[in-house]
């Protein structure tokens, strides 16, 4: 899913070293980045550090964002997820965090920072696809994404073979990708 013209313009300004573009990117996407970091880390200070890492990295290397391969939001959330998961895995109290995270309800995002109808359509389609997944596909995806668990950890938590978990995650992810592609090709 290629990025919007707005994302491309913002990135060009970041490449040119425009501080206002950094602030604009922060104001558009910080709530999503911080929210995801909080979802994974359940810790405000660590989520702030993660958010700072994400936007400093964007500012240092805006050329890493490839507008042909996705939206700026997806790019920033991917960085946020990676950094947050690194921190989760580094924590000795990881198990406690996971149990806390398991108790948290999944709350739909209450606004659309990217602002575009296409982005909202994509989110709606992917979320519908997630809801329609069988539990044995949806649950391991949520555990891997929101809790930062490896396939092995997910398998241990669910008492399933690791290969089975990998297969089910693949099946579920492919269905959600198909939903994404259906939005891309529809008029």
């Amino acid at each position: 899913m290629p990025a919007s013209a707005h994302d491309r313009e913002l990135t060009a300004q970041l490449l040119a070293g425009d501080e206002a573009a950094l602030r604009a990117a922060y104001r558009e996407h910080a709530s999503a980045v911080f929210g995801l970091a909080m979802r994974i880390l359940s810790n405000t200070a660590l989520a702030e550090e993660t958010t700072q890492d994400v936007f400093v990295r964007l500012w240092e290397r805006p050329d890493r964002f490839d507008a042909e391969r996705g939206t700026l939001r997806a790019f920033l959330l991917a960085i946020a997820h990676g950094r947050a998961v690194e921190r989760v895995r580094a924590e000795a109290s990881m198990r406690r965090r996971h149990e806390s995270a398991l108790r948290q309800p999944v709350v739909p995002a209450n606004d659309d920072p990217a602002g575009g109808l296409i982005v909202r359509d994509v989110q709606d389609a992917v979320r519908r696809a997630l809801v329609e997944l069988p539990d044995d596909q949806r649950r391991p995806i949520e555990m891997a994404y929101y809790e930062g668990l490896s396939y092995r950890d997910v398998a241990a938590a669910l008492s399933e073979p690791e290969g089975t978990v990998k297969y089910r995650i693949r099946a579920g992810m492919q269905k959600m990708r198909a939903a994404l592609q259906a939005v891309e090709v529809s008029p």
Partner: protein
Amino acid sequence: MNDAWDDEDRAIARALDVPDDGGAVDERALGDYRVVLGSLPFEEVTPPGPLEEQVVAAALARRPAATSALDHARAQRRSRLRAVSLGAVGVAAAIIVAVLVTTHDGSSPRPNGRITSVAVSRPDIDALLHEPGTRTGTFDHGPGTAVLARNGRGNIYGLDPSAVVGISLETTQGQTASLGSVLPADGAIAFSVNRPERVTAVRLTKPDGTLLARATLLGD
């Protein structure tokens, strides 16, 4: 159940930041899966207010801005003051000012330009080199070549890809127009300028403005 890994498995694993076998990945699929995961529901949370300033300060410590937010604020303030002044002096004065501004814009010796991309392929550069009227110049210090076509599209290539450089254009009136600073991916930068015929040379600078090299554009 197959424990072997294929491109799709790796794209999914990398999007989820879980370990994989380290093999090749389908980048398009990885991009799609990142969009998928970025679309999953979670509560967006407004970060604490002071974080924005912390983030900007940390970012600017790593890479100074070519254009600061203060510049934008000053420009906006100047713009607002100009609007208020125009309102105060009345329609007649506004017409005069408008005429002056129009005249000034039309004869300005300083072109306006901007960096458009740091992802420039060799075919893009070759296409520009083959356009009629394209001028080129080799930098006098260090590697690199500048290319500027009649339509205002330009490339700079062969640069050191590990260093941030500032780009500015010299004009026929001896002035310079800064395009900003950037880290050239694969040593190449694309830019565009609105009055290419008035550009005589391209300068490379350090981000602080210190001149590194200069390429005079020839061949028109």
